Structure formats: C-alpha cells, structure tokens
C-alpha cells in the first residue's frame, strides 16, 4: 500500500520501558515538545515510513475493532485536529497506553513516535503510531576511534519498528470506524509466532484485528494465482513447478501470512514476476500481507490433479506430487507431445 505524496507534518517522541520486575508499569518519559529535525533527517524519517508500506512490505490492512474515546483510534482522530502544544500533550496518552499493553517483561521498551500529516494524490489526513526499539551500534569519531552506543533507532536495515497507520477516507468530519482505514507494519506479523510478538501491538494497543475477509482473500489469492499459472506462457514442466510452489506456499509453509510479492520472489523466475503482480492487481488481490486463513480453500488444497487426454488423471496430496512425481515433456511418435511421468515409488496396487 505505497504512500503516495506523503507529507509528514508533526512528530512527537516519548520513551516507554519494559515492565518492572514485579510487572508494574514503569512510567514513560514524555517529551515536552515536537521533534524538530533538519530537512535531511525529516526525509530519512519519511523514508522509514515509506519502506514500511511500500509494495511487498510486511504490512497488513486491519479492521478497527475498538474506538471508544480512550482507544487509540478515537484519540488519533482527535489529535490530528489539535494545535501543536495540545498535540504534544495529547500524545502522552499514546505512550502510556503502549506501556499498559506491554503486559509482560518480554516486550522491550522503546520510543513511541506519534506523527501526522497528509497522504495521497488528493491529500487526506493520517496519523501514525510507531514503536521503535533501541539497538546497539558504533558511531565513528573524527580520529577514527569509535563510540559504542545503545540508543540507536530507525536504522534502515534493522526493521526494529512497528507502525500503525490510520488514514481517513474523507477530508473532514470522519466517523469512526467507517471513515478510517488502518494498516499495520510489523516484521513479526508474518512469523508463525505472530500472535505472541505482534498481537500486543496491533491488538491490545492499537485496538485492531485481522480483517474478517482474510479467508476470502486467501481464496482469491489461490484462484487468481492458479489462473495466472494456467495461462502463463511457460512450458508444462515449469507449470508443474509453479503449481507445486503455490500448494507448498499455502499449505506446507509455516508462516501465518501470505503475500503476492513474497510468492513471486520465492517461486517465480524474474521474467514472470512483474506480469504476475499486474495480474493479481487486476484481480484485486491486495499486495499487502494477508492472514493465512485457509477455511475457504481447504478442500481444493487437499488434492492436486494433473489431467491428460482420454480422462487419464494423476492425483495425490500436493506434498507427495511435489516430492515423488517428476513430470517431463517428451517427443513421442509422429512428433506428438507426450508426457513422461516418473513416480518414485513402486506400484502398490491397481484395479
């Protein structure tokens, strides 16, 4: 979900800590003013936000579940309307609420960054809530000595940050939740342990939930991908590989999410990737991360079929087809195209 024409207006930074040993909240440290940065630094901050929501980034469209006055969704809708001084004041609550949501000592402290602005070709208001973890690094000094620091954050390669981005769907008088969209960037969203390391941020803290249409989206991902492979101008042998990849990606892979770009990069030759992305866009399959809810494609994922003339069919579990069946196109008598199938198993029975 690339953020076209992103204009960041105000940024405010606070610090939260992990819980104390007796699991009490350690009071956050609040900043008393907006973050003032030179242009180059503002550009770098914007670049981090862009990298979180660019095509193929690990971000997921979410549903807004909680929007009572004390919830982030309502506080955010209010904070974008404030003057600068109030913006700082009201942003304190965002930090405290994160400290509350981090119920266990396993969640590290970090910086809470609240920012707002406009985005889009026809600019619409947005606000963002970021948690940036501090990490270690070295800072070069002029005499080629180095200082070791533990207070770095937002370095581009580490991805040690999570962002909830709320964008209005109309310019003013928005009503919650319908006039807002929410998208979450979190590198841990896609891990199989998603619920542990990501849910406290998007769920407990931001009040969001995985959209209920995930199952439908996974089904359309599956169908649109099959359609693309069927009509792709590659050899049948290559198509066997692509189908095997698709079944493996959906069924075998342990990750909790799927994504068009990720599938393209992992399973497709470079020359197909662009066409595939375009095809999926036309079929309205989102380019963002989709929660892997297989309930709507369960049955069709269970058996993989290869069909030939004269009603000959080879079928079996996708993992078995992928591991034990080798399909090769050969030239038969009279120049006909034949298929040579090797099954790495003795024939165990026939009727």
């Amino acid at each position, binding site marked *: *979900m*690339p*953020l*076209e*024409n*992103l204009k960041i207006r105000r940024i405010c930074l606070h610090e939260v800590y992990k819980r104390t040993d007796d699991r009490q909240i350690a009071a956050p440290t609040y900043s008393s003013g907006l973050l003032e940065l030179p*242009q180059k630094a503002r*550009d770098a901050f*914007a*670049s*981090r936000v*862009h*990298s979180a*929501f*660019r*095509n*193929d980034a690990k971000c997921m469209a979410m549903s807004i579940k909680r929007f009572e006055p004390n919830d982030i969704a309502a506080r955010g809708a209010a904070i974008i309307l404030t003057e600068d001084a109030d913006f700082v004041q009201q942003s304190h609550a965002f930090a405290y609420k994160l400290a509350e949501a981090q119920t266990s000592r396993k969640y590290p402290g970090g910086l809470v960054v609240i920012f707002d602005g406009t985005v889009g*070709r026809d600019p619409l208001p947005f606000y963002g809530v970021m948690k940036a973890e501090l990490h270690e690094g070295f800072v070069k000094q002029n005499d080629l000595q180095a200082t070791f620091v533990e207070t770095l954050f937002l370095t*581009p*390669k580490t991805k040690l940050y999570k962002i909830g981005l709320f964008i209005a769907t109309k310019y003013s008088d928005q009503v919650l939740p319908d006039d807002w969209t929410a998208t979450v960037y979190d590198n841990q969203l896609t891990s199989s342990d998603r619920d542990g390391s990501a849910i406290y941020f998007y769920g407990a803290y931001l009040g969001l939930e995985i959209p209920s249409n995930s199952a439908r989206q996974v089904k359309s991902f599956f169908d649109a991908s099959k359609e693309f492979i069927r009509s792709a101008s590659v050899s049948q042998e290559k198509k066997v590989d692509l189908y095997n990849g698709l079944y493996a990606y959906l069924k075998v892979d342990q990750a909790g999410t799927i994504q068009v770009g990720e599938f393209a990069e992992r399973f497709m030759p470079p020359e197909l990737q*662009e066409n595939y992305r375009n095809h999926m866009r036309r079929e309205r399959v989102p380019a963002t991360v989709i929660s892997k809810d297989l309930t709507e494609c369960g049955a069709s994922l269970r058996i993989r079929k290869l069909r030939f003339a004269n009603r000959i069919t080879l079928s079996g579990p996708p993992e078995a087809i992928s591991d034990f069946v080798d399909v090769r196109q050969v030239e038969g008598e009279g120049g006909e195209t034949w298929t040579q199938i090797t099954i790495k198993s003795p024939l165990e029975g026939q009727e």
Partner: protein
Amino acid sequence: MTRDEEFSARWESEKLIYKRWGGHICRHILATLSSTFTPAYVNELLKVRVEPRLKDTRKLIEKAFYRRKAYADPYGEITDKVGIRFVVLLGRNIRHIATAIEETEGWTWSKDRDYEEEQKENPVTFDYAAVHYVVRPRNDLEVNGFRIPAGTPCEVQIKTLLQHAYSELTHDTIYKPQMQATPAMQRNAAKSMALLEATNDYFEKVFDQVREATKAVRVITAALSMIYTREIGLDPHPSVLEGLLLEAYEGLAEEDYESDIATMLREKTYLVDNIRDRVARQNPLFAQPSILLAYLDVEKRGRAALNRWPLTEAEMEPLLNDFGESVH
C-alpha cells in the same frame, strides 16, 4: 621633462580612458555573443577570462623609443596600449568573435594580423597565427558617464588555446626582440606552429565525431529540457550527471515518452512541487532534464526501476519515496 617622462605622464593621465574603452568592448562583445548564442555556450566558448589589460608603462616606453621601430608619433601609432584577448578552443570558433566586432555599429576596425590572409600569401611558412583587430570608436563615446574620444585604439586578439600557448612561449623572443632570434630558434618555432595547426585540425575532427556520436542523446536532452521548463517552471541545468542518466535511460526515450512525462506530471502535481523543492535545496540531480525519464521508469516499475538507476540507491530513495516506494 625628458621625452620619456613626458610620454609617461601622458599615459598615466589617459590610461583610465583606455581601460574604460577596453572594458566597454569586453562587455559589448560578451553581450552580443550571449544574445546570438546562449550565456552557457559563451561560457563554454571562452577558455580564458576576458578583461582589458593596460600596457605596463615601462614596456610602453621601451616599445616607443628603444626597439628601432621608427615611429613618427609613438603615442598615437602604438595601438595596443590597451588589449583584450579572446581565447577559444577551436580555430573555427574565432569567426564568432570576429563577426561580433565587425558588425558593431559605431566602431571602426582594422585587421592588424589575419592569419588566413598571411597563410594565403606564404603557404609554406608556419608562423604565429591569430586574428588581431584594432578597434576604435567612430565618434566620441560616453561609457558610464565617462567620455572616450573618437579614435581611441584597443587591440583585440582572437586566438585558439594552442596559439595562445605558442604566443606565451615566444612572447619576448621572436616578436619583441631584445635579442636576435637564431635560425635554430625560428626553425623550432615554425615546427611547433606547424604541429599546432595540424593539432587544431584533429581537434576539430574529434569535436565533430563526438558531436555526431552524441547527437541522439543531445536531441533527447533538448526535448526533455523543453518539457522540464514547461512543466516544472524552472530552467534545467544539465551537467555531467545528465550524460550519466541518459546513458542509462536513453532506451526509454522512445515513441510517446514526451506525452507520458507530461501526463505523469499533470496527474501527480506533487511531483512538480517535490522537484522544485529539491532544486531549491541545491540538489543538482533534480535539475537534470533526464531525471524525468527516471521518474517515468519508477512510475511504471516501482522498485524494479532500481536496476536501471546509474547512481547509488540512496540517491534514488527520494524518487521512490515520491511514489510511496523505498529501497529499504
């Protein structure tokens, strides 16, 4: 007062007039060239700073009385009391400046040296080759509130860098002899002059070949510059970066690229604002006409456009960010 003191006193009292006359000629020629061509071209054309130079008093007296020149009226007959040099790269560029002098209303001019004429007369001799004019105002002239009397002479030399080098070498030996040049010296000077003439011919050939080879990209830069000025509202400043970008993007400049760029900039007006912002922040990349082709590539291909970008990833980040993409 002695003869020399009298001469010197007159020169001291009048030399500011000569300097102003020289300054006026410089400004006028540069303005004429700039309007005939472009200021940028003139900047390219002239290889040495153009400024009026007054003759040193001591040297002037030497020339007037001690070099067996037999002037009847040394002060009036010495025409290079103030001089200007126009130094160009190629022999063929000399005529640009010559034309500007000859076509100026209100000046009279005489050709003191004309190497083409001299070479016609002595086709087998290789000698110092340059064009020297003596330029005078036809009538009394007013320059910045000061009067320049009619007939005040100024010597204008037009030569190539190669000829300039040669004249530096032989400055005080052959043409202004305080000693006799030996035949061996003259022979070596003639040899180097012949070599310079041949070198100029090769320079011109190379120049033409380079021009021919870069014709296609120059046409693209010209077309992109027009779009840039029209859509961005600023003049582009193509530099060596333009060549670098075009080397990568030349292939994209086909069929409808001009209208594609115009459409992109009109649909996404914020791109225009962002380009202007970055030019205002002195980022030279965004003043290159062909940056528009890079934008077109990113619009079409997103991050995949990185593989064509000829500079660093960090330098592409702003373009990607404009479309919500990122290298990270």
